[in-house]
């Protein structure tokens, strides 16, 4: 008898302990990250934006986060558990979460999802990405203007449209600043690996390159450039510690305004599925302060370019632009369509390397 009461009260204790987590009126907002939240790059910036969002709303919402979630089957399980735990809105912050997000969303029609950098949406799934190629236009122009050897380098992660777009945009604008410029591309098959990134930077320098652009997330290229001379850019974060040499400027991921906006929509009950691609104008892509020995005229040119892109009066992919094989892509004054940019799998004319497969 005594034993039974003990068990019963233990069970009640469990139920009580568990209860507050479920019986919520507050919106519960969840975030899933592919890397650890202190990776210094992609995941950290999403995490920091999530924290900013939480600070903005304070106790009006509850926030949960899960880091280092592998893409694929594990992601599907984590998302299901989040949905079961009563999450109202789940941000899945990596491209590889796309199919898992769509699958889980189909099972939980009342839970809303926001997937970063993908292209699939559903009634309760939005997609959001940033037009980083707008920022690449700025850094590409600076690279072209600042190289003395007329050789610039680009560290790529994977040959996917996102990265190829960045390479094309950088090269086109480097060329605008310096018609003689050549660009070498190194592929690393990783988004974050300081040792590989440092090696690649050194290899580029050995080829005579003196300005390096990177589409990987660590600060390793900048720290190599700091010692060896040459210039680079902050990527994902401002990386201002490396100013004024080697850092010239930076492309900054600014997710916080979007997160605040979407959580507000959940609070107001106005959330609807959408597919957005925001750039400098919307504040999702930030350009860091221009530092280092950049001449005044170059500085004013790129700042004007930035304002024009933000205002929508200049598109980084404006014709005439030929494809690498010399065939025409955009006629004079023609602007690239989003659909083509989203699936971009070709280089523009003047790039000598081939896209690996």
């Amino acid at each position: 008898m005594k034993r039974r009461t003990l068990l019963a009260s233990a069970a009640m204790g469990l139920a009580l302990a568990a209860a507050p987590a479920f019986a919520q009126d507050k919106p519960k907002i969840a975030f899933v990250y592919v890397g650890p939240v202190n990776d210094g790059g992609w995941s950290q910036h999403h995490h920091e934006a999530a924290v900013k969002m939480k600070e903005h709303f304070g106790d009006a919402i509850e926030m949960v986060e899960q880091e280092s979630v592998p893409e694929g089957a594990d992601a599907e399980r984590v998302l299901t558990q989040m949905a079961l735990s009563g999450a109202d809105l789940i941000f899945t912050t990596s491209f590889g979460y796309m199919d898992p997000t769509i699958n889980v969303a189909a099972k939980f029609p009342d839970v809303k999802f926001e997937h970063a950098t993908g292209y699939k949406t559903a009634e309760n799934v939005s997609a959001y990405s940033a037009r980083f190629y707008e920022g690449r236009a700025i850094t590409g122009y600076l690279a072209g203007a600042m190289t003395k050897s007329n050789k610039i380098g680009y560290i790529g992660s994977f040959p996917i449209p996102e990265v190829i777009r960045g390479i094309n945009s950088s090269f086109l604008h480097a060329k605008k600043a310096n018609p003689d410029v050549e660009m070498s591309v190194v592929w690393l098959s990783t988004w974050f690996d300081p040792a590989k990134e440092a090696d690649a930077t050194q290899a580029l320098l050995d080829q005579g390159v003196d300005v390096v652009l990177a589409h990987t997330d660590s600060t390793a290229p900048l720290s190599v450039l700091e010692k060896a001379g040459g210039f680079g850019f902050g990527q994902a974060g401002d990386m201002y510690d490396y100013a004024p040499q080697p850092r010239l400027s930076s492309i900054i991921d600014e997710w916080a305004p979007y997160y605040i906006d979407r959580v507000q929509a959940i609070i107001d009950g106005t959330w609807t599925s959408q597919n957005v691609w925001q750039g400098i104008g919307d504040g999702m892509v930030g350009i860091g302060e221009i530092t280092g020995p950049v001449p005044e005229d170059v500085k004013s040119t790129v700042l004007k370019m930035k304002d024009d892109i933000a205002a929508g009066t200049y598109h980084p992919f404006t014709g005439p632009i030929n494809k690498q094989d010399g065939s025409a892509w955009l006629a004079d004054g023609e602007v690239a369509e989003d659909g083509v940019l989203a699936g971009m799998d070709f280089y523009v004319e003047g790039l000598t390397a081939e896209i690996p497969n």
Partner: protein
Amino acid sequence: MIRLEKRPQPSRLWTVVTPLIAVVLTMVVGGIMFALLGKPPLEAIRTIFWDPLFHPQFAGYSRPQLLVKAGPLILIAIGLSIGFKAGIWNIGAEGQYIMGAVTGAAVGLAFYPSESVLLFPLMVVAGALGGWAWAMIPAVLKTRFGTNEILVSLMLVYVAENILASASASWLRSPEGMGFPGSRNFKQWPAVHNDELIANTGLHWGVVAALIAVIAAYVLMARHIQGYNIRLTGEAPRAARFSGVSPARIVFLCLGISGALAGAAGLFEVTGPAGQITIDFNSGYGFTAIIVAFLGRLNPVGILLAGLLMALTYIGGELAQLMLGLPGASIQLFQGMLLFFLLATDVFTNYRIRFAKGELA
């Protein structure tokens, strides 16, 4: 003075008790760690070990997920354990897992959109062959040139990762993927989708294969002459050679079995829970399986239990992150402790402690 004295033979009692002691020690030290992180230790331990099985809200979903997570771990670990028994150290199961998935998926996609019932079995065979072939590289190099299979199999993981990246970015890329990396999703192709055999049980063909592998490995090691040869090679290589066991044959056999099982695991995963070939398709199963093999003491039944325990700590760890906001790294530390304490307490299976006076010179 405390000293260790070798037991005349391994203690049966300690063999059974050490895993339990290791789990208890992990809970105690892990609890202290969680407390230092400012989280309620008992609740954290309960969330990791109890909630995935019995929590009213989650268990209905997470219990079947245990099988989904444990299935590939067990299947790979069974294959590895056979080699480890013979002293053949295949550290590259992760690569064989990738190659199995890529080969099997490639064979399947070549017939897209066939609805033939023969296609899925064909893909399983192709997957196992892919893993087998990848494991044959270290086997041939070892028997021909005496290279170290640990290094070669491990290095081949990185080669396989690059093949995977190229497969998902180009030659297996979905034509409907708008240029994004990733193959077609097998979940949307019913003829080859490795779905749950009974709804809400988590039981897919890979789990069935893992269970069969457990039984087969048990029979092989306990009853079959090849199993005896394998054990003999591991325990007394010279004796094995004198009794006519060809070392090269054992190398091919062990690496072949572990490669084929890892490859099959990859195929079951890509057509089932993962759904598609992507750049980051592999999530470390091949490496975790090494831990599972040792946690299960290279014994088939032990591996079955170890795989389930490992899966429990993964799923419980995820819940603990979600419910209590524990950092992901603390969960990994917790899993590491489990292995550490297991190996540490394992000493007592073969040794006993003697409290002697300081008189010995």
